[in-house]
């Protein structure tokens, strides 16, 4: 024991230095067989895998999605603006994707229109009015709602909303607004939960300032808390919209799946996602229809990216204030 101590004390200065300064390069440090380096390897590896996955999906979808234009010689412009979708016509099949782009957009915006007021109301109730109750009961309930699989929302839509629409508005009940209602209910908990977080993030000093100048609770919420939470509330709504945009199953079950531009919200319609899930199963790889569906997938991906860019942009703007 004593001897050992003496030895370390007597160690030359250069050896002490080598312990403090790691002169190995980045990659050799990464492959060092110490637990520190292994942890690093795991974390760097996961991050790398994530980036590779995203890049690979984008690349794959781009290559597959461009086939219909490059290999099959479809005109890109007529593809995204065309309104006729007759892929099965033996003579002169036509691929006009605009009804699906329109359907996706319409479902997304109508769903946001339905969900936003209710979601923000719920969030305000949870975060401003009944804080204890909100945290204890509402929060878990909303988390459960977020976790319900979309097929369940679709089933409920099918067995409740569709018959309701049929009885009260005529037609089959399978239409654009039914789809929007089902998706709106589906994204409601997502929006509410993020909105509640952003309302809780508003500093209490602003509420105090508001009460101190003789504001009522409602005035404080309406004129101080909501504007202060502003940009993050918008983020919540757009996040909900991007979820609505990508939803396939629940929409497909209730929207009617007709590849035409609906003339009213009570007409059956279709979206990018529903046409892909409906048709992809009975196409052969490399066929014209298969390629066209990939192109729809590419459009879907690009629009989803646009949503993400908007969210980032709003987030940055919010930080600046």
């Amino acid at each position, binding site marked *: 024991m004593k001897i050992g101590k003496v030895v370390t004390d007597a160690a030359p200065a250069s050896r002490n230095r080598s312990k403090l300064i790691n002169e190995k390069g980045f990659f050799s440090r990464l492959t060092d067989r110490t637990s520190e380096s292994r942890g690093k390897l795991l974390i760097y590896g996961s991050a790398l895998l994530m980036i590779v996955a995203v890049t690979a999906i984008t690349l794959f979808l781009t290559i597959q999605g461009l086939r219909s234009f490059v290999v099959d010689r479809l005109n890109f412009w007529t593809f995204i603006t065309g309104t006729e979708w007759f892929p099965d016509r033996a003579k002169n099949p036509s691929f006009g994707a605009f009804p699906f782009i329109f359907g996706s957009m319409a479902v997304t915006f109508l769903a946001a229109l339905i969900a936003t007021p209710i979601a923000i109301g719920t969030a305000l109730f949870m975060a401003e009015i009944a804080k204890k109750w909100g945290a204890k009961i509402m929060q878990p309930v909303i988390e459960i709602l977020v976790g319900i699989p979309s097929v369940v929302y679709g089933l409920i839509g099918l067995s409740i909303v569709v018959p309701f629409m049929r009885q009260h508005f005529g037609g089959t009940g399978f239409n654009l607004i039914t789809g929007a209602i089902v998706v709106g209910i589906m994204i409601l908990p997502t929006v509410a939960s993020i909105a509640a977080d952003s309302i809780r993030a508003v*500093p209490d*000093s*602003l*509420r*105090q*300032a*508001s*009460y*101190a*100048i*003789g*504001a*009522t609770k409602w*005035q404080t919420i309406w*004129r*101080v808390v909501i*504007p*202060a939470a502003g940009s993050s509330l918008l983020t919540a709504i757009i996040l909900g919209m991007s979820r609505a945009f990508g939803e396939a199953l629940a929409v497909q079950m209730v929207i009617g799946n007709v590849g035409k531009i609906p003339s009213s919200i009570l007409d059956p319609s279709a979206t990018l996602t529903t046409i892909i899930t409906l048709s992809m199963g009975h196409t052969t790889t490399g066929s014209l229809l298969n390629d066209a569906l990939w192109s729809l997938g590419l459009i879907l991906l690009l629009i989803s990216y646009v949503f993400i860019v908007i969210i980032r942009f709003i987030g940055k703007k919010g930080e600046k*204030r």
Partner: protein
Amino acid sequence: MIQMEKNIVSFTNNTVTKELPIQINVENVNIFYGDNHAVKDVNLPIHEKSITALIGPSGCGKSTFLRTVNRMNDLIPSARCEGTISYKDVNILNPKLDVVQLRKEIGMVFQQPNPFPKSISENIQLPLRFAGVRNKKTLKDATEDCLKQVGLWDEVKDRLDRSATSLSGGQQQRLCIARALALKPDVILLDEPTSALDPVSSSKIEELLLELKNSYTIIIVTHNMQQAARIADYTAFFYQGELIEFGQTRTLFTNPEKQSTSDYISGRFG
């Protein structure tokens, strides 16, 4: 010790020649947070158009007491008050009192400047809008008037539409005071308004308060005894939830009655 204290502090503007009428009278006020007896049996007169400073070590109940005067403590669910604070023939602590109206008459400024993340002019106009003022000209005139009162007008008149958060800390605090003045209150409560500010900004606020006391009754909580000595007409010393001593500032600082007051102002604890 007291002799020494005289040399440190300067009494500039706070010689009370005649007793001013009492605007708020505090009788037997007790404040509790749950089981914690935060303020014990306080009796205190607040004189009209004068500055009353509340001093004492941290946690002595002075801020709690201040927040009771405009019922801001209502926002804390566990807070409970007993006693009487008479103001305009009503008891402020009456549970049936319209606190929204009360806070329009008794304004408040906080330790950290807390302007709304809106434009400078909106910050001033919001209290008026809350009170139902819609006339554009009235709002514009009030903005100019309030900003002039706090000496901020010349600094910001060209950028009234800019965000209030772009102002410096001292400017933000003066904006908060201007916001409190917008409704022409009778009383302004200030909770350590300069403790987050640099010395230059602090002295600007002090000068401002000396000006404002000609039109408003001011109660200020401060950790800075020199500040109390410089600006206050009356000073109340709180210690462990009790009001130990109250009197004219000069008397309290030069000739305190109680030993603990003397110990505190000479810096022996706190």
